[in-house]
């Protein structure tokens, strides 16, 4: 999206090369506003680039396709400079804008920017918890991200190496619990668990699927989708599993079902949930003056137009792909629309 009223003064630093950062960068580029993306990992795309397609017999509108071409567009866009393996060391407020000290690989760069967008995404609690429970060797315990990679690598005939007969989804794993310091709902797991369940049933129609859930967060659009869920072979048990253990290769879940303690083995257990704040949120808050809320996510103190520091994506709390893209595009629009004087919305 090229338009001619680009503003030579504007130059934006974007922390995080995931869906939010790239969308913001592309929107800014539409207004000929250059941006620099700092990506801590060696490759662009963050988590969403690894997400798999959740289309069973037909598309379940999960939103992954919104980012289909984004990565190529960013890599080909000369308005966007991508610095991989790099992070922000220090940031100083200048008369107009900021000067940032960036560690990129082994060398250090000092650059000035007019605005900053924090888009460093989230921490996947389940992946860490899996290592904590030393289950990462086991093939049959999957985190949300493992499931997404399996969906991504699937072929026309095969989703898992061997067809599972019993799959369990453990929802709110690492959310809505004071113990894991996450007293909030991660909001996306009900969506991707039910959608991926339909894909599993598409590949393996006889596979039995059980959901351990607290409250299904299905938006109205999804509730039409939920009707497909009450077919034989799909079970919903409203409880949080007491313990998940791995004996031999089959994971076992101990749970309480209407007053009775039950133990059941499954071929695959998928731990869904746990969008936790990114570890560098605290440092970013110190550098930019934004506040860390009670759950560890960042939030505005003063309106971003004043401070020229914007938030996009899960840095400010769990968001779906759709909301992340909308917010990132909104941030890009607002940076571009601000007139030069002093940040009053044009």
């Amino acid at each position, binding site marked *: 999206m090229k338009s001619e009223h680009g503003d030579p003064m504007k130059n934006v630093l974007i922390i995080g090369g995931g869906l939010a950062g790239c969308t913001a960068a592309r929107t800014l580029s539409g207004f000929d506003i250059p941006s620099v993306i700092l990506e801590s990992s060696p490759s662009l795309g963050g988590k969403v680039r690894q997400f798999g397609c959740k*289309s069973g017999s037909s598309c379940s509108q999960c*939103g992954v396709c919104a980012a289909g071409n984004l990565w190529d567009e960013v890599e080909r866009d000369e308005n966007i400079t991508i610095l991989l393996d790099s992070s922000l060391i220090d940031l100083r407020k200048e008369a107009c804008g900021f000067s940032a000290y960036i560690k990129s690989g082994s060398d250090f760069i000092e650059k000035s920017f007019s605005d900053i967008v924090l888009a460093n995404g989230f921490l996947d609690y389940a992946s860490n918890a899996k290592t904590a429970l030393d289950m990462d060797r086991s093939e049959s315990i999957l985190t949300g991200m493992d499931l997404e990679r399996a969906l991504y690598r699937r072929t026309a005939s095969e989703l898992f190496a061997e067809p599972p007969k019993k799959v369990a989804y453990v929802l709110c794993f690492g959310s809505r619990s004071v113990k894991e310091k996450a007293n909030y709902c991660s909001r996306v797991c009900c969506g991707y668990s039910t959608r991926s369940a339909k894909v599993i049933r598409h590949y393996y129609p006889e596979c039995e699927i059980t959901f351990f859930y607290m*409250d299904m967060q299905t938006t109205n659009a999804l509730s039409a989708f939920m009707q497909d869920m009450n077919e034989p072979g799909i079970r919903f048990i409203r409880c949080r599993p007491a313990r998940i253990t791995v004996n031999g290769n089959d994971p076992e879940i101990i749970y309480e079902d209407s007053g009775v303690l039950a133990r059941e083995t499954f071929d695959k257990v998928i731990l869904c949930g746990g969008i936790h704040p990114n570890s560098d949120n605290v440092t970013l808050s110190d550098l930019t003056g934004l506040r860390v809320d009670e759950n560890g996510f960042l939030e505005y103190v003063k309106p971003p137009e004043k401070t020229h520091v914007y938030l996009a994506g899960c840095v400010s709390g769990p968001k779906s792909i759709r909301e992340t893209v909308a917010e990132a595009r909104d941030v890009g629009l607002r940076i571009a629309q601000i007139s030069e004087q002093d940040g009053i919305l044009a």
Partner: protein
Amino acid sequence: MKIVLAGNSVRTGLIKSFFENEGFEVLLAGTPKEAKASSDGYPVIIVGSSVIPGFLIDDGYAQRVIAGLEPKAPAVMLLDRETETPSFIWDLVLKRAVGIAAGKRHVYVLARSVRTEFPGLERSYSKARAHGVTFIKYEKVSVVQNDAVSAVMIDDGVMTLEIETPLLVDCAYTEDRSVLEYAEALRLHTYDGGLINADRWFLSPGRTSRRGVYYIDAGLAMSAQLEKILLSIADEIRLMAEMDVGPAAKIDPRKCAFCYTCFRLCPHGALYPDDSAVSMSVRHNYCSGCGICVSACPANAIELTERSEASGKRQTDHSKGTVAFCCENSAAIAARTVLPDNCVNVIPIPCGGSIRASQIAAALREYERVIVAVCNDGACKHFDGNKLASRQVERIREELASINIDPQRIMYIQLSHAMPNVMHNMVDNERNRAL
């Protein structure tokens, strides 16, 4: 710049003044027919007016109702009665519950399941709990209404409870279904039985399946939110006006036989019979360059202005045994990620629907095998492009079979960029077949 406000919601006036001081000239269209007529030239904003119980929205009214109750009587707020109460209504309920509880009154919130999907909903929960609001998840509920007091019987699957209350708030909201007439008049695509802006491609509030047509449910959005959505629509309209829209259809008037096929098949309603012209005309800000009209036009009178070089010209490269017409929204991206360059000549197309039988037939003269790779059902950005493609493939297969050429030389696959290996093993087993 002119825009059109369609629909007659009580808040149309408020929205009209918002756009007026954003510098737009606002026309009003009270009926779907007027909206259709005016949609030729100007962006249209459909204003829906779903109805939320006044008790939840109007603070003044709520205060008056609460004041009228005798002090100690509990208040009951009932959700999920017929349909699932959406999360933004939960936000209103919780704020109102806190307001009532502050007046030292016991409040029950009854629901089938707790919704936590709205931004900041957890905060409202903890606040409500702090004020002593009781949440009960029920399986069955029945209400007996007798003049001032109503008795609510709740069964949560384990035990039953009866509450007498002078204030029973049914928090159901009625959706504005009249909007669907506008959707039909303006040829919008509706999703999941009636939602017209759950469009995942444009991913911003207010957009519909057609560029230049927006939708606001003024009944739902609270003032702060409403302004935010109106703002993003205003930006969008300004942006669209000055932005060049990328590839768009161009019609050669000499060839156009005015047969309306393109008008009927265009998923975005971008073609209209401009009476001054001799042929069908294209509304550039609505056309999204999908090419469905190019394939459908029996007079071969339509082309896309400039195919962005990213999609590449058609390089005929005989060394490769296979050519793959790939939808640029799915298969072309998948091909780039998984197919090494040497085995398939990938030709990106804007949408499966733009593939023409003559292209497939011509390709068969140069290649051993032709793949048509399009999006999954329901994922097509242009709604039925993938189905149009499958019909073209079917037809060509019949023609080939009649002159005893193996119809299986044409393959039709559906995938998305996020399942690229479907492309990979399609090519593999084709390659082993070639060995």
